[in-house]
């Protein structure tokens, strides 16, 4: 029978990989919806009412599926990782409880008003509801990422014994919860969510443009999402570069796995593109053996913050067992590659927009359609780097994942639920896709444009991020 440790880890992987799609959709849509609602109320223009009503439907289904898959994760800490929960509950449970009270409650109650209440409540309360729903989704991320980042860079605790069991005891809450990783994760994740949704919106709009069914509604969607893409795509790369440096400082083992660096070395180049030369390179990439196009010294510069001769510790010189290097190495490369593609795509669109030919470039439209869900895929890859890369630790340097699994869990039980999730979540993804496609096909307004469609490019000050107050640059 399967090892309950392996089954529990696989199950957690499956359930988080599926779940994260829906918060990305709701967190990314939130600033757009606040902007649409604000414009609808301020300008009374029909197109903003249509935009708000249409994208709220996508938000609502994402929120429901996000709720039912999110509760699963909260329960899984207890069901599958009871030893971890007992040992780390003092630090880890608090943020989850606060997330429920502060964030999830705000989001779930005002969503009722936001989805069902347009005709029932005043404009002012409706506007407030959109802000509270958006705030709720983002605050949720704050508390979940506080909990996660503490596991990556644990601070503010000491080891203690309770009821005869070793536990991690909280001594300094500020150090624990404002830990070094949190701000990096939060900015990277939120920008990724907005970027992913902008790509999705642009992709859907581009489909209608490409098939010559573009109305004012789709043109507006395309322009707004492209404006957001032009800010978020380059920002993600600039921020990601600095984030990488922070990972090298705080989790050298993860960084070495990202670079497949086995031997400690100085003046290491950054492997911009890596090509496997044999099958074993795919399953067991090693920096020394790959055919790579690399930027000389850049990995050293990255890791040290400017010193081209800096030493990078290799996996062979780290005493604990390695994380699954191949998964981390290739996921990282795919993530960065896709991130570069998004920048290129946004510039391409930007140039066409300036030329006044945004809706005439079929190839651009096709590229956008093809990229519509790649943002979400990239978020998944990034989380795989983060979570697989921190193995074998569940709490970095403190507790191994294998020690965190429920002691009384049997392989049969764990396998039964794992298989159950694979089946149920596959169906869930099919249903979610079906519903989203149905909404796009059937619920989009088809009215011919009422006003002249040629809006001049909006300055950055009117893009949704600035309305929401998202940091747009460092």
């Amino acid at each position: 029978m399967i090892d309950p440790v392996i089954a529990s880890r696989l199950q957690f992987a499956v359930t988080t990989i599926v779940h994260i799609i829906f918060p990305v959709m709701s967190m990314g849509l939130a600033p757009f919806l606040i902007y649409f609602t604000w414009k609808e109320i301020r300008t009374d223009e029909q197109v903003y009412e249509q935009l708000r009503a249409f994208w709220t439907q996508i938000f609502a289904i994402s929120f429901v599926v996000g709720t039912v898959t999110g509760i699963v994760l909260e329960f899984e800490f207890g069901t599958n990782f009871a030893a971890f929960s007992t040992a780390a509950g003092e630090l880890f449970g608090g943020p989850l409880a606060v997330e429920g009270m502060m964030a999830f409650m705000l989001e779930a109650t005002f969503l009722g008003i936001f989805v069902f209440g347009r005709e029932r409540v005043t404009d002012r309360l409706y506007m407030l509801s959109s802000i509270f729903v958006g705030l709720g989704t983002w605050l949720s991320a704050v508390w979940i990422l506080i909990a996660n980042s503490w596991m990556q860079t644990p601070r503010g605790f000491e080891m203690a014994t309770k009821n005869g069991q070793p536990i991690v005891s909280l001594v300094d809450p500020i150090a624990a919860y404002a830990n070094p990783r949190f701000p990096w994760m939060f900015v990277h994740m939120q920008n990724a969510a907005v970027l992913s949704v902008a790509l999705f919106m642009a992709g859907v709009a581009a489909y209608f443009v490409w098939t010559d069914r573009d109305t004012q509604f789709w043109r507006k969607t395309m322009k707004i999402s492209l404006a957001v893409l032009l800010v978020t795509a380059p920002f993600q790369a600039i921020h990601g570069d600095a984030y990488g440096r922070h990972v090298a400082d705080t989790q050298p083992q993860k960084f070495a796995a990202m670079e497949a660096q086995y031997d400690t070395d100085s003046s290491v180049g950054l492997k911009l593109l890596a090509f496997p030369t044999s099958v074993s390179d795919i399953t067991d990439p090693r920096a020394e053996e790959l055919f790579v196009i690399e930027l000389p010294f850049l990995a050293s510069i990255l890791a040290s913050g400017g010193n081209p001769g800096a030493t990078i510790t290799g996996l062979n010189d780290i005493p604990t067992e390695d994380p699954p290097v191949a998964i981390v190495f290739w996921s990282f490369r795919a993530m960065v590659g896709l991130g570069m593609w998004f920048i290129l795509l946004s510039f391409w669109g930007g140039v066409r927009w300036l030329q006044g030919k945004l809706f005439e470039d079929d190839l651009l439209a096709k590229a956008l359609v093809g990229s519509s869900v790649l943002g979400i895929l990239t978020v998944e890859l990034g989380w795989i780097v983060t979570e697989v890369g921190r193995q074998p630790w569940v709490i970095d340097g403190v507790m191994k994942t294998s020690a965190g699994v429920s002691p009384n869990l049997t392989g049969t039980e764990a396998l039964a639920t794992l298989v159950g999730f694979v089946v149920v979540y596959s169906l869930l993804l099919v249903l979610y896709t079906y519903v989203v496609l149905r909404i796009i096909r059937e619920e989009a307004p088809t009215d011919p444009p009422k006003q002249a469609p040629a809006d001049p490019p909006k300055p950055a000050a009117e893009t949704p991020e600035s309305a929401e107050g998202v940091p747009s640059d460092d």
Partner: protein
Amino acid sequence: MTDPVALSLADGPLFGLPLDTLWFALVFAVLGTFLFLDGFDFGVGALFATRDAEAERETLLAAIGPFWDGNEVWLVVFGGMLFAVFPSVYAALFSRHYLLLFAILAALLIRGLAPEMYEQRHDDQWQTWWGRAFVVGSVTAPFFLGVFVGNWLFGVEEFASAASLLVGLAVVALTITDGATYLGLKTRGDIRIETRPMGHLAQAGYLLLVVAALAVGGQSASHVSLLSLPTLALLALTVLLAAANVVASRRDRHVLALGAVAGQAYGLVALVATLLFPLIDPVAGLEVADAIVSTLPLNLSTIAASLLLPLVATYFVVLYSSFSGPVEDEESYA
């Protein structure tokens, strides 16, 4: 380096309060809030099986549409609070009842998804199947939750015992009572008239099932003292509230009737809490005072809950008052 605020918060419980007992009560109060609020969503879901007309089905879905999501979050808060202040109990209970917990999750998933799916297409077969899924999820979710609470109370280690199955059925009966009473408030005409006797039947069933569960469970669990004053007082109160619900709903005093059901939901969790206390996990023989987290995180959770729960109450007041009164004819779930 430890900052001075953290140090003073680690000295002792805030204001010298018996925070362990207060949190034990609060965790059950949150569970009771979930049971009452999501209870009527579950009940409406169960009663959905009794309505065939398309317009009536839409009315039922519209009656819970804006609310069920917020109501369900009380379960998330219950889990989070248990994790934050009694982490070892959270871990022991959830891992001990592994398959049961996933049964609860599966039921909640079906219940949450079904109304969304139901509205996606208007062909008969699609709506028949998603309507059935909605009913199944709405009945099995409270059933498995009740079994879980029964297992917790009676210290059952296997999937379920006769007593915990009876608790599960009792909770289903209570949610149907809750749903029928709620529909009295939120609908007019045939739905209100025809679901009322179903609610009254469920109300009677609830009383019988609670007594039966206690009688069966009390025999095998030595820590459960049935003939104590608080137990008998809570049972007497439950009978009174059940009578009040029946009388009030017959006189169309729907808010009063719903209040009587709320009282029974809180009465049930109070009964479970008093029967357990001072134990919190009978299987491990663990007491509340030993299971509580250290003083510093306990004080922090106390501060967080004191600030946030009043705010949360405000959100619910705003939500429910925005959609007060019976569902209008043109309103639907979509």
